């Protein structure tokens, strides 16, 4: 599977970032496994340690399994001033996890991230590709419940 994704791109190390994105997205647990790195390394002719260096440098990649939905709450100052720490506390309670953790049902992973570029709607979070702004504790609860309902 990893190999098929790789083969969409030329075996050129410039394509590493894109391949890593695709491999992570294609994985049901949204992460890049050691086995996948081994395959990518071989395909691109880039040593595995270099790929690991890239993987851990960027916060958008994960080297451990994650939930079905990735929540990324902005921790930059504008969101902080508008109360993102309360949102974080609420999310932790709702999901029963600490930052970086995955909920028991495997549905959510809670992460922090840098500015998402929509400070006008602070506090802001993303769940997968969707942005949610002007968050309040009630609104967050609603969103989480809705996704839980969808399964």
């Amino acid at each position, binding site marked *: 599977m990893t190999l098929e994704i790789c083969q969409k791109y030329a075996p050129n190390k410039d394509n590493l970032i894109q391949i890593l994105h695709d491999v992570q997205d294609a994985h049901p647990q949204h992460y890049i496994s050691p086995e996948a*790195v*081994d395959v990518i390394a071989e395909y691109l002719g880039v040593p*595995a340690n*270099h790929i690991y260096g890239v993987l851990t*440098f960027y916060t958008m990649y994960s080297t451990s399994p994650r939930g079905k939905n990735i929540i990324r709450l902005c921790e930059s100052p504008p969101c902080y001033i508008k109360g993102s720490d309360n949102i974080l506390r609420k999310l932790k309670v709702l999901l029963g996890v600490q930052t970086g953790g995955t909920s028991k049902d495997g549905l959510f992973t809670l992460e922090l991230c840098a500015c998402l570029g929509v400070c006008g709607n602070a506090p802001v979070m993303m769940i997968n590709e969707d942005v949610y702004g002007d968050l309040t504790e009630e609104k967050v609860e609603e969103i989480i419940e809705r996704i839980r309902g969808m399964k």
Partner: protein
Amino acid sequence: MAKIVNVFIDGHHLEVPDTMTIIEAADKHGIHIPRLCYHPDLPPTANCGVCVVEVSGNPTPKRACCTPVAEGMKIVTNSKKLRSYRKTLVEMILSNHDVVCPTCAANNKCELQTLSNNLGVDPDALPCILDKKEVDFTSPSIIRDVNKCIACGRCITVCNEVQTVYALTFSERGIDAHVDTAFANGMANSPCVNCGQCTVYCPTGALREKSEIDAVWEAILDPDKHVVVQEAPAIRVSLGEEFGMPLGSITAKKMYAALRKIGFDAIMDTNFTADLTIMEEGTECVTKLKAGEKRPLITSCSPGWIKFMETYYPDLADCVSTAKSPMSMFGVLAKTYYAQERGIDPAKIVSVAVMPCTAKKFEARRPEMRDSGFQDVDYVLTTREFLRMIKEAGIDFAKIQDEDADEGMSFYTGAGTIFGATGGVMEAAIRSAYTLVTGQELDNVDIQAVRGLEGVKEATVNVPGFGDLRVAVAHGLSNARKVMDRVREGLKTTGESPWHFIEIMACPGGCVGGGGQPYGNDIASRARRGLALYEEDRSLPVRKSHHNPEVVRIYERFLGSPNSELAHKLLHTHYFKRSVYTGQVTGEATHKHH
């Protein structure tokens, strides 16, 4: 072409080529700019900021290690501002460092310790923020303690650029950035070949050998054990400097005396089995040459090189000599031939090897190295560990009286001793292979073309009855890669290797530059130690392995002839394929010859 420019460092007028950095120019003229991550043998990583200097026309200080000189540049290396910068930097490093100098392996050799001392740093200036991480003990050769790491990046440069092994990398970023193996799997589960070059260049105690000193003392102090010791060629020229003797002093006889004083029961010498290796490998080479073999023969003494080959060139494993290394040959013979000759129960023999090498610890534990029916070599001490034992035993090495080794597996020729320098195995092999092919003696035994520190050396030797013997010598694994790529290419395109016979050593400079050598093992001291081995070679009465009387004797009394069945059983080995990601065995590359 480099232009000569005028620069002024602290008011001194210097004329230097414009290809130099400020730190190089200063070093060349004896002006020492404080530094931490920079090492003259390596390209600058510019990670620490300690080397800051004020440069005319620049509002902020510049890093001397990565700033090139320019015409008319005025440089100040010491000012109030710079002193305070440097102090703060070092204080920040110490606040995130496991400061345990008295018991640290790097104590007295540590560049961080020396710098802190020189700068008069206050160790308590900043509160400790160290979040202690697990130490990596997975490797049989090397311990990696990230709590003593200053993130200078030298080990990464050495591992990736000098050795092209690709075991280490920076992981994460900012304050969390640290050195690691891929997926934090640990050194033993990475492509690390145990060469130890990272331990040589690490400025602190973050990378060091896994010590076997305690186990060796234990054996020595056990009256039921018969402890046999062997020492690699490079050891005899690497001990004196620690005791105030000039770098490259030849101290074989002091070394024997110290070993006896420490309490080893039988003091032998790896140089003897170096000579034996020449007989085995030389015979293998001559058989190949006579058969018109198109694939080359490549030396097999360097365990870092062997693991590298198994990982990156398993398709060429059949080209690598099946001969075990001199250390492993010695190990198996100590528990067979020696035990038999002396009437000692091999189960009581503890075999210790003093090696300039960390990879030998890995080699000794390879499952193949048990042909005596026991683990052939029980413990491997690096030169650094041996030095610590000499000190612990209270020996004043510079003053100790010369003594001889015990008779038997200790006699060696000049050919055996030059094994410790790059090109030495090749030179020793040519001295004997010539005779094996022609039945005549080579008159001029000094084969200059394969000596010296050039990365890849080539030579052609005319052997009557055979023709031109083309040889190559590579040291440092990035150079090995160059040679192996050409061999692979040659075999693929023309079906022929560019060379008949190739010597490869994992460490730059050969064993004198090994990963277990004393701290301060830079290129210049490797060169000096190498020359000392050639000096010893010239001074020895016998300079060709096939004239070693003890080698002749062991064939007469025990092995039969070179490459005999018994020789194959005890002195030869086979190779595996390994994963480039985990370094683990994935299958056989060659089979053991029966």
